[in-house]
């Protein structure tokens, strides 16, 4: 077994902080401005980071706390900030996420928001949602899930029964969300997909800078989520407390969970579930997509079989990716994540069960220093994950397949489709061609026929 020294410091983290996840989730609610209660730098740094992936503007407001506020409390700045954001952006909703600073000085944000509502609220005032996201606890994934849960908990009310399905998409790409919307449409299943940044973080060129980009999960729909026929949460490593769980406990909305539909089995399970929930058969287009995918996997199987892959990133993405890779014959040798949900190992075991490949090394809570150390000398052919593994891939002279977030060294990260047979098809072609390309360029012959 490969050894890894357990260093105290984190070197080149394979995770981000929780307010970043919350900001992206809030960006997926219609008319919402994400607002960080903390010092100015947090909002600016995260904007930079998010912009570099999506190539889209993302305005994240900040209460811009200074030294005095840190000592006497951030309440006045929070209220002033909310007022200014309301005046300037006319939002339907302001999503307030805390930071390590305001969590530590002990600002009671729910109380401050209630005060603000008492003092300033009028009929047109935006809804205020609050989520606690101290950056010393969890990763961006916890922040993302908590923000979605907070929106649902704080907005969903008792509602008449609707025919709608609540779909919790998880931290996927705008292209993935567009796919999920299409699936619901084709199943003729009305749905509230939350969050939905398919337009807000991948929008068209415009004539005017949008105050808040169009799109997102409508607030009105969120308010009615308590009356939905069912909730469907996509994820392998979800925490106990989620938006779906809340709706089940409070409004008895049946909760279904299935892993991210990546690869054949997970997409099968997802579509079967939708067939059941919508009472409509799986649309023939998807059967056709599946058929083409299987056909191409047969065509390319020899190139992929036994190739050894390192996969890293969020636990969700790594489990989903690994599930697909084992279906193609690739051998995942190292599955790594900076997250630590406690469900990673079991997730990987579950989705590799029954496949005749050696069990991969599985590590959670690791950084890129660890990943590189673990990957050394275990014989790797291909690296799969976000842009941050580029240094590792380059040093080891390995091809890097870019998936997930962030993609900072290519354009189009927001348009990578990971989900469904179609996402698997795109990934399969990319991976197969990358391996073929390597074989071709490593060969002294110069084959033009592979």
């Amino acid at each position, binding site marked *: 077994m490969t050894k890894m020294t357990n260093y105290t410091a984190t*070197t080149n983290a394979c995770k*981000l902080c929780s307010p970043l996840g919350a900001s992206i989730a809030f960006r997926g609610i219609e008319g919402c401005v994400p607002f960080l209660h903390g010092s100015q*730098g947090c909002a600016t740094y*995260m904007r930079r980071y998010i*912009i*570099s992936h999506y190539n889209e503007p993302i305005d994240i407001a900040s209460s811009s706390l200074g030294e005095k506020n840190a000592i006497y409390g951030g309440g006045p700045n929070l209220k002033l*900030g909310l007022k*200014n954001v309301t005046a300037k952006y006319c939002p339907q909703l302001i999503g307030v996420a805390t930071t390590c600073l305001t969590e530590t*000085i002990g600002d009671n944000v729910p109380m401050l928001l209630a005060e603000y509502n008492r003092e300033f609220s009028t009929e047109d005032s935006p809804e205020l949602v609050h989520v606690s996201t101290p950056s010393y606890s969890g990763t961006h994934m916890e922040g993302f899930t908590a923000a979605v849960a907070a929106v649902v908990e704080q907005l969903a009310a008792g509602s008449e029964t609707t025919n709608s399905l609540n779909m919790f998409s998880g931290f996927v790409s705008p292209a993935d969300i567009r796919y999920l919307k299409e699936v619901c449409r084709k199943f003729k299943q009305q749905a509230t997909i939350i969050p939905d940044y398919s337009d807000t973080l991948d929008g068209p060129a415009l004539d005017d800078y949008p105050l808040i980009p169009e799109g997102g999960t409508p607030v009105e729909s969120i308010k009615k989520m308590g009356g939905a026929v069912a909730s469907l949460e996509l994820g392998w490593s979800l925490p106990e407390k989620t938006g779906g769980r809340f709706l089940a406990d409070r409004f008895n909305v049946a909760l279904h969970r299935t892993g991210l539909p990546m690869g054949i089995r997970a997409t099968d399970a997802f579509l079967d579930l939708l067939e059941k929930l919508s009472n409509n058969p799986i649309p023939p287009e998807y059967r056709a997509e599946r058929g083409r995918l299987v056909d191409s996997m047969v065509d390319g199987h020899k190139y992929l079989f036994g190739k050894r892959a390192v996969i890293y990133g969020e636990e969700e993405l790594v489990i989903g990716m690994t599930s697909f890779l084992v279906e193609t014959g690739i051998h995942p040798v190292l599955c790594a994540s900076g997250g630590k949900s406690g469900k990673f190992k079991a997730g990987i075991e579950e989705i590799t069960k029954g496949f005749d490949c050696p069990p991969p090394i599985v590590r959670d809570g690791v950084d890129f220093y660890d990943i590189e150390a673990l990957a050394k000398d275990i014989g790797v052919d291909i690296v799969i994950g976000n842009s941050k593994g580029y240094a590792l891939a380059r040093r080891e002279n390995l091809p890097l397949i870019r998936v997930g977030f962030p993609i900072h060294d290519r354009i189009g990260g927001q348009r990578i489709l990971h989900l469904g047979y179609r996402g698997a098809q795109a990934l399969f072609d990319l991976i197969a061609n990358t391996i073929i390309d390597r074989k071709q360029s490593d060969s002294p012959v110069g084959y033009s026929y592979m």
Partner: protein
Amino acid sequence: MSTIPPLKTRSAQIHRKGEGAFALDCNKDSLAGAVSQRACVFCGSRVVLYPIADALHLVHGPIGCAVYTWDIRGALSSGPELHRLSFSTDLQEIDVIFGGEKKLAKALDELIDLHKPKAAFVYSTCIVGIIGDDLEAVCRKMSREKGIPVLPVQSEGFKGNKRAGYQAACTAMARLVGTGDTANISSYSINILGDFNLAGEIWLIRDYFRRIGIECVANITGDGRVADIQRSHGAALNVVQCSGATSDLAKIMEERYGIPSIRVSYFGIEDMAEALYSVARHFGDPKLIKKARQVVKEELEDLLPELTGYRKSLSGKKAAIYVGGAFKAFSLVKAFRLLDMKVVMVGSQTGTREDYLELEEITDDGTIIVDDSNPLELSSFLKEKDVDLFVGGVKERPIAYKLGVAFCDHNHERKEMLAGFSGMLNFAREVYSSVMSPVWQFVPRRAEENNHD
């Protein structure tokens, strides 16, 4: 859609040249909720110290501050590349409750043994300022144990803006200065302050000085080395670029060692030439001045003809500038003039009153001058002035692109060399390749115009 007027509380920080007497508020805390383009104290310290390539840069705090600043700058090194790694104590809830000092000491102990840096900088973040870890004491202890300078950087994010971060960085560096051997340093010697070797620019600048016969003792901080900074008090002159990022250090060195300093800019032909001349003039040796003229002449011979071509195409196009420090804006205004382009808006995150007075002086009537702006204001200015090109950093780019405006990245992340004489040519090329792209005819802003024709 109509342009939305700025928040009332912001209007004092926006000035239109020619409309009333100059009055511009600046150097104040960002307005809550205004979506400032500014970062924080930590950011200021991190940008200044980051390029010191053989030092360990450990961020003491939760993971965010370290991970958002991991290898994001194009600050190149000719040797070690320790600065490109991101180290964090990754504080967890339990550390916040019981204090992070032990974890910090252990992290330093392991990292110094593993990477053998020449010095270590330990950056304080918001939370460390609140939980009250004694950075100074931990650093002193580790410095004694490991035999290298371990320097605290008091960069708690909330303690002001980027400027305060520059100061904290300079305070930390000042502790290195004066600890090295200054033997064999030429009397015609300088330290280069405030160039960060983006895309290798400092190598170009150093080469100009070498050709004139001037020795560079320390790069502060582009392609920087701890040992060079330690002996930088042996230089005869500090040549300081950039709006104040390193001017605090120059001030300290003047007080402590009597080293004078001059302010320069390496952007644009005029400023680059003047930088070389002013350094040569400082030493007063006619030979140096002659050589400086020679260098400028040689460089311009190749440059000017090519530049003329770009100038022809770009003539009359309108440019907007929004940068971190105002000093860069001065040079950009001049550089655009050289390309015969009109600057219609110019602003900075952290300019001072003097900076803005100078901008008022060098710009044309009607130019918008703005301090600490935000996306809504900037986009409304781009629309109002029907700008052809916006110059800024990563946070400004999507504003330009969303509206279908050409863009030139003039910030820390760029990969193009824009300083020096050849940098001016790269700049012209970069501006040209964005402004002249055929894609603009398809964006709504121009498509509509085309339809109306």
